[in-house]
């Protein structure tokens, strides 16, 4: 039963003697460790999951008309309903872009407008895209039905289709009848879900040919956006620089965006949020620290006489100090170990529930929070145990022996 270190033995036995009290104090640490580790893991898993989603578009660039250094997110399609005539990419500009991109990949134009639509008796709003029919075939995947062949046929996104109960053959009336003539189009296909994307968000959109679009809104040869798909991801920067050099030579006329900035911005937002929530979880560790402190003060106070005996028979101050630091350390380490095991289980459930996937749970960046929270938990115990231990070590042996 006796370990090599009798001081450690004394500490361990005292923890066991007051088993319930020790368990409760350690429980505080368990909760704190679980809170910090789980939240840290949720944050990382969210970031990893979003990053993975975004990296699908890492080979895509968007070119939008320059709007005086406006927000990066606002430049996307469907972002602006009423645009100045200035805020377009002209046919000439597109030719320049196409020429630059030619050896790296493809470029295509995009016209977009947000408008009122009517299906049967239901009205709603949707983004209407005008694209080259060949590009529609190349870029988009039709799940049911076929690609549009005529200027009056369109494909629709799955979310919109579901919301307005659209099927192949359904008719959509585009435009507000109070403001002018409306155009009726026929749905010939429903697209596969594509998710949110910076270049083209089709899930809630109606996609038709450029001719259909200019037929409704005019603006032939004026594009809202040019999308570029680069074959080799390593050329993204080169393409971006080349376009900027060419088109923004005299003055800024276009904004070229790649997904990296968007990714950076999302990642940093997520990590700020995670840190903030983790700080709140840290409060639970603070509460645990107070309870450890309380237990340690009790332990010292009820063992004053024992400390006196130990000192009288030749125990050094440092060894008395060590005994109580060990005691706090045992509570901290036991709490931290149980906490870390629990946080693996609880963290997994929470990550699965909040992020929707546990694919990244066992990634290094995610699991690192377990030892981190463990170290913080055990460390806090040692720090809060230090003061009572120091108090114990400086007790006067005679005074201590007199205690009952």
């Amino acid at each position, binding site marked *: 039963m006796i370990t090599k270190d009798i001081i450690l033995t004394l500490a361990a036995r005292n923890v066991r003697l007051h088993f319930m009290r020790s368990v409760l104090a350690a429980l505080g640490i368990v909760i704190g460790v679980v809170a910090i580790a789980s939240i840290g893991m949720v944050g990382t898993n969210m970031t990893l999951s979003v990053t993975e989603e975004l990296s699908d578009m890492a080979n895509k660039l968007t070119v939008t008309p320059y709007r005086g250094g406006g927000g990066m997110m606002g430049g996307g399609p469907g972002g602006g309903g009423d645009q100045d005539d200035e805020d377009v990419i002209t046919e000439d500009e597109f030719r320049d872009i196409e020429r630059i991109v030619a050896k790296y990949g493809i470029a295509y134009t995009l016209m977009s407008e947000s408008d009122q639509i009517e299906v049967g008796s239901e009205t709603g709003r949707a983004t209407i895209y005008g694209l080259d029919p060949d590009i529609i075939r190349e870029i988009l995947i039709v799940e049911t039905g076929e690609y549009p062949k005529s200027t009056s046929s369109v494909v629709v996104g799955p979310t919109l289709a579901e919301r307005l109960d659209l099927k192949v053959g359904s008719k959509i009336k585009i435009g507000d009848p109070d403001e002018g003539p409306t155009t009726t189009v026929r749905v010939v296909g429903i697209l596969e879900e594509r998710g949110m994307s910076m270049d083209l968000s089709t899930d809630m959109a109606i996609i038709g040919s450029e001719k259909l679009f200019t037929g409704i809104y005019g603006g032939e040869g004026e594009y809202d956006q040019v999308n570029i798909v680069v074959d080799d991801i390593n050329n993204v920067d080169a393409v971006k620089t080349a376009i900027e050099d060419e088109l923004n030579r005299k003055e800024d006329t276009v904004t070229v965006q790649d997904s990296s900035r968007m990714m950076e911005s999302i990642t940093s937002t997520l990590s700020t949020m995670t840190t903030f929530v983790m700080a709140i979880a840290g409060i639970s560790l603070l509460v645990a620290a107070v309870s450890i402190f309380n237990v340690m003060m009790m332990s010292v106070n009820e063992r004053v006489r*024992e400390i006196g005996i130990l000192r009288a028979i030749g125990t050094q*101050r440092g060894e008395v100090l060590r005994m109580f630091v060990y005691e706090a350390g045992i509570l901290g380490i036991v709490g931290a170990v149980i906490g870390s095991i629990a946080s693996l289980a609880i963290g997994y459930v929470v990550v699965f529930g909040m992020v929707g996937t546990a694919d990244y749970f066992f990634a290094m960046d995610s699991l690192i929070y377990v030892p981190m929270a463990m170290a913080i938990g055990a460390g806090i115990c040692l720090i809060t145990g230090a003061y009572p231990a120091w108090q114990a070590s400086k007790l006067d042996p005679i005074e201590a022996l007199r205690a009952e």
Partner: protein
Amino acid sequence: MSGPVIELKGVKKVYNLPSGDVTALNGVDLRIDEGEFVAIMGPSGSGKSTLLNQIGCLDRPTSGDLFLAGKNTREMNDHDLTYLRLTSIGYIFQKFNLIPLLSAYENVEYPYIMKNRKPDDTGRVQHLLSMIGIDEALSAHKPGELSGGQQQRVAIARALVNDPAILLCDEPTGNLDSQTSIQIMEILSDLNQRGRTIVMVTHNPETAAYADRIITIRDGKIV
């Protein structure tokens, strides 16, 4: 048997209490030679326990000098004094003062480990325990499971484990019945006969009778 093992020169101890200074020892000169068995007697509050605490290095004199085996303790720091208590002084208390978390065996072994930094592998602990009348079965018990006499025997074994030059006893039979008291005193007497220097505080004349020399202290002075 030669030379003073304990020597006090003009030892004064003043406690600064809120109600005023209390002089517990007022210039004590005392010389105890190796192998002596000295009893310190006196009424309560006379300063006999204070004197024993001084000799046991649990406290420092306000003024005056205490020499243990020729060394002046004034120059020693807390660490040195603690080491002296561990290696050269064996303390036996009225209330036994065993560590409740340790078994009888471990209580005796504790100072041994503190001094040698390793458990006893020489059999010394067991030898001392059986010499003093605690068998192996009893030595596994915690102090709370032993009688007063048994606890005091364990305490004597603990005091002896590091083979100290001096054995200090503070009312060693104060909490024991007369029959057990006699047994304990006979153990101490036997230890003295084998050459151990013993200083004992008592107010019981029957206990004091075991000593070679009786010192009486009154109002902080030896009379």
